[in-house]
């Protein structure tokens, strides 16, 4: 699949919703910002957190894998999300999946490691603005108060009855990433626009 030349531009799960998200963002006069961040590289990594591969992979990526549950580590444009005691999601700008997979496998050597490209499995929604927490609170049972879910936190939970990965961005004002399965993305965008009704 090395010489892939798509015949047309790739289409993201929420390409069709971009205008509605932008319109709500404009109408809210800064209260809420909703947008899809399409095509981000997402690579699922499974390895023994206590084994030698964990450190080796962290070094190779220049991105230590977070060991504390529900935290993220950022380095440059890449982010490593804790998903489980032996599971991480690496998120990077579009097109990095091959490179990441190669570096991880090379670094792990003979240690058993599973690497799976899941870039299209989920898409990423940005939910930001002063009312971002209020919008999410309509459907997310987690406590997203900055004391509890500040920068550096992530969680797998449910939002509007879809499973999501929530990430608190670097600073409270930067809002949240909501990673959602692509098949649910249309529903979740609809849900978010509905939840934002009072703020737009």
């Amino acid at each position, binding site marked *: *699949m090395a010489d892939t030349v798509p015949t047309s531009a*790739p289409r993201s799960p929420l390409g069709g919703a971009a205008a509605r998200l932008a319109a709500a963002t404009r109408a809210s006069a800064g209260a809420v910002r909703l947008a899809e961040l399409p095509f981000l590289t997402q690579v699922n990594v499974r390895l023994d957190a206590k084994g030698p591969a964990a450190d080796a992979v962290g070094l190779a990526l220049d991105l230590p894998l977070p060991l504390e549950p529900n935290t993220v580590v950022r380095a440059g444009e890449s982010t490593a999300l804790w998903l489980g005691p032996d599971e991480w999601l690496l998120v990077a700008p579009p097109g990095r999946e091959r490179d990441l997979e190669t570096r991880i496998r090379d670094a792990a050597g003979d240690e058993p490691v599973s690497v799976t490209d899941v870039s299209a499995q989920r898409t990423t929604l940005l939910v930001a603005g002063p009312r971002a927490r209020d919008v999410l609170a309509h459907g997310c049972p987690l*406590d997203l108060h900055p004391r509890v879910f500040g920068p550096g936190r992530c*969680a797998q939970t*449910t939002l509007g009855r879809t499973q999501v990965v929530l990430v608190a961005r670097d600073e409270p004002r930067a809002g949240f990433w909501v990673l959602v399965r692509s098949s649910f993305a249309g529903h979740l965008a609809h849900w978010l626009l509905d939840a934002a009704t009072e703020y737009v």
Partner: protein
Amino acid sequence: MLLIPCPWCGPRDEAEFHYGGQAHVPYPEDPSALTDEEWARYLFFRDNPKGPFAERWSHAAGCRRWFNAVRDTSTNEILTVYRTGEERPASIEPSPVGAPPHAAGSRPGPAEPARPAAFESGIVPAEGKPEAAPPGEGRPTQPFRHPTLGRVHRDEVLTFTFDGVTYQGHRGDTLASALLANGVVQAGTSIKLGRPRGIFSAGVEEPNAVVQIEEPFPEPMLPATAVELYDGLVASSLPGQGRLATAPDPARYDAVHAHCDLLIVGAGPAGLAAAEAAAGSGARVILADDRPEPGGSLLGTGEHLDWVDAVTARLRTAPEVRVLGRTTVFGYYDDNHLLAVERRTHHLGAAAPENVSRERVWRIRARRVVLATGAHERSLAFADNDRPGVMLAASARAHLHRHGVLPGRRAVVLTTNDSAYAAALDLFAAGVDVAVIADTRAEAGEWAERAREAGIEVLTGHAVIGTDGDARLTAVTVAPYGETEGGREFAADLLLVSGGWNPVAHLFSQAGGRLRHDEALGTFVPDTCRQAVEVAGGASGTPDLAGALAQGAAAGARAIEAEGYTAGTPRLPQVPAQPRPTPPQHLFTVPGRAGAPRFVDLQRDVTVDDLARATGAGLRSVEHTKRYTTAGTANDQGKTSGVLASGVVAELLGVDVSALGTTTFRPPYTPVSFAALAGRDRGVLHDPVRTTALHEWHVAHGALFENVGQWKRPWYYPRDGEDMGTAVLRECRAAREGVALMDASTLGKIDVQGPDAAVFLDRLYTNMMSTLKVGMIRYGVMCRLDGMVFDDGTVIRLAPDRFLVTTTTGNAATVLDWMEEWLQTEWPELRVHCTSVTEQWATVALVGPRSRDVLGSLAPDLAVANDDFPFMAWRETTVAGIGARVCRISFSGELAYEINVSPWEALALWEALYEAGAPHGITPYGTETMHVLRAEKGYPIIGQDTDGTVTPQDLGMGWAVSKKKPDFIGKRSHARADTARPDRKHLVGLLPEDPGTFLPEGTHLVADSVLPAPPVPMLGHVTSSYRSAALGRTFALALIKGGRDRVGERLYAPVGDRLVPVTVASPVLYDPEGARRDG
């Protein structure tokens, strides 16, 4: 909702978890060595203890880890959690029951001093004066409005209609207070007896004035005492029963989640004091109150309102403090999860903004809770105690101070305790002529002295023995307590009653708290509770204001200090000295005129006589008398009558009320509309909808959709004028004769990686997967431990240590959970990881004799000849310039391919195939055609042709069950006597003898052409039924006892009132030789 502490992620809502049954029940080392009985014991038998129980849970919506929890099955408390593989902790004690709330005092009910003499300047003549507002239509408006008292906004005149008559009120009124201001006290008739009933209270406890709101939107059964007045309100009285709206409610209802360190329920003196102590500490505090403004009972007594305003102002600006007005906390659930409903725009009437929800459900998770819910005054069971004009004493006082309304001109007071004196004195000071206070006690103490000093006659040891009046009370007869005749008659249009006070312990009780009977108070008060909750003020039985304030402040401080914050010194008002209290008399019934009903539950028309019939019938429990008489079952849920009913039943049985207790309090505290509970979870947001990357194309091409799990799948694509049958026959023909394509992206896909991946799949599937060669594909079946088919799909070997597994569309998450459960709990030694990649790939099925031509034209690098690319092989290549994994799989028996690409490129692929196939008449098809094609080939659909009682052998798939593998999940069960029976139901084909007759799915099958007398022996049932283009007839699949031995037999299918003759056939009805597979 329980909070379950995931060992990795910490406490999360129960809804994020899956239950996995009893823990520490290991899979037997060698199932084949077990007897059937031993195996059945492992399979079907689990402990069921009361108390601590170790069980498996999976954090399914979170980190997907399985872990163990010890749960107390009698309380649902999770005592501990630990990771799989760890030993169960030796001994775990349930958490101690909380300390009793800090109850103090000995007198029920808030008893505060009467108004100072200065208030007398506010006296209005008994005849009343016209209001400041201009009279409309010559009608003197609001003749019962006090000129100065109350917190209504006199500059805002609101017009409303009740029972067709237009009235005026003010902002700040309730519907009830506005009616009273206009001299209207009757607000309905009773449900069974049709007796006129009047406004009885000033709050949510109202049993009588339950009205129908007609506009702006019809709502039934709202207490007029809790309906805020707005301009344009149209309401009508009810005969005890309301009417639901027939049109959809256009308003928006929504819900939010909230978290706090401390939730305070009730913004009366105790609640405000608690908030005052907690605010400013940094703790996150929510103060919820059901009224439009804070103050609680202080609003009703008119005391310390400056303090209320000052505290409220501080709270509104304090960081991390949220004040929720018009918010009723109605449910108290596990782990301090409380539900509240906020009425956000009701009071705005037609002016409510459309984008603001009318009601909002708050789902609050609180570290600590302080319940400061106050107390409800209760009535007494005396003769004719239901006439309009009979009102709870403190409620009359509240109408005066909150709304500036005089509930009558001339009042009689009946009381068993001190608290009614303050009401009488305040009303007297405001101009109500208080004719007499009948106090059942022999000694009435200092309060009576104060009343006498004010000029009010007090008759101790007296009670009301009868009342007169129809639409409104006209007279009250008072006699020494115990007498039933004679007495003195007082002309009166108002009878104030106080039978004592009931702490509002509803939420405490819902929380699992126990109530105890307080001898001094003569009622039930909160005792102990396992949850982190305290009760303060009137709700705990504390009768006096100073005590309530101190108790509230202490509870608020304790709560936040337990959470690590430092409480400040709260500013509390100085409460002036009170008259010395006199103990209340514990009394429920009052003897009265013969034949006059003595009502206990006004809303259900239940009298003392009704309860006597219940006890006479032998009922000894208040739960039973409640159900026998319906007392306490109306939508007021017996707030003013529940304890009274217990007291009456106790008297009838000759026992102490403390021995009877109360009936159980259950959520909701007050009625909550279904619209609010549904919130936004309705219409398209009712359930998530999953769509594929090709969804918009399907919509644009006229597809009708079928729900498969949460997926929307194209069902069929009707052309102009086509019905479903015609469209499906056309689609089937295209797939069998030309080329057709289908969106198969919804199939579940799981990437299975690791050195032990092949070993793992060998254990999961009935057939052998480890022998599969890289580059090849194998169909596989999975069973549950009981040997029944659970899922099927294909397994693609990508590399020696990597497979891609497909599952049925609806079962993808279940299969992944199943894999994780085995890996994490039973086989942690296996070096395998499973990752869902369902949406990583879009899949297009290209089917039909021309499919090779179409694929070949778009995949120049792919050798498509049968020898180069055989059945059950896969290749990586480019199709239409798009990187693709092409699998030669067929679910139709035709030459077919499944082309997997990135969903980002799926539309480009689909459109390229559609264009390249056009010369061959390429046809998109949906799930219905897929079902027909597979059924013609006898391929079962798991979940349609199976129901959890079907083995692979029953399906005729013994070939997919390995005999070489030592074990796989379900193998031992296949050897059980029951699964080896020859007369099990087999999947077979059915051909109706009339090729046009269609058998509905679910049709049963019988042996004879004439139905015998019942019970009729059933041989099986139809699982799938279609019309076949290829066969030129109808056909069906069915599960039939011993079906494979009946091929060729004639059976009968009862369809309507006919017995349709059918012939049993092989399930493979089309191309049984498999000649079409390779094109």
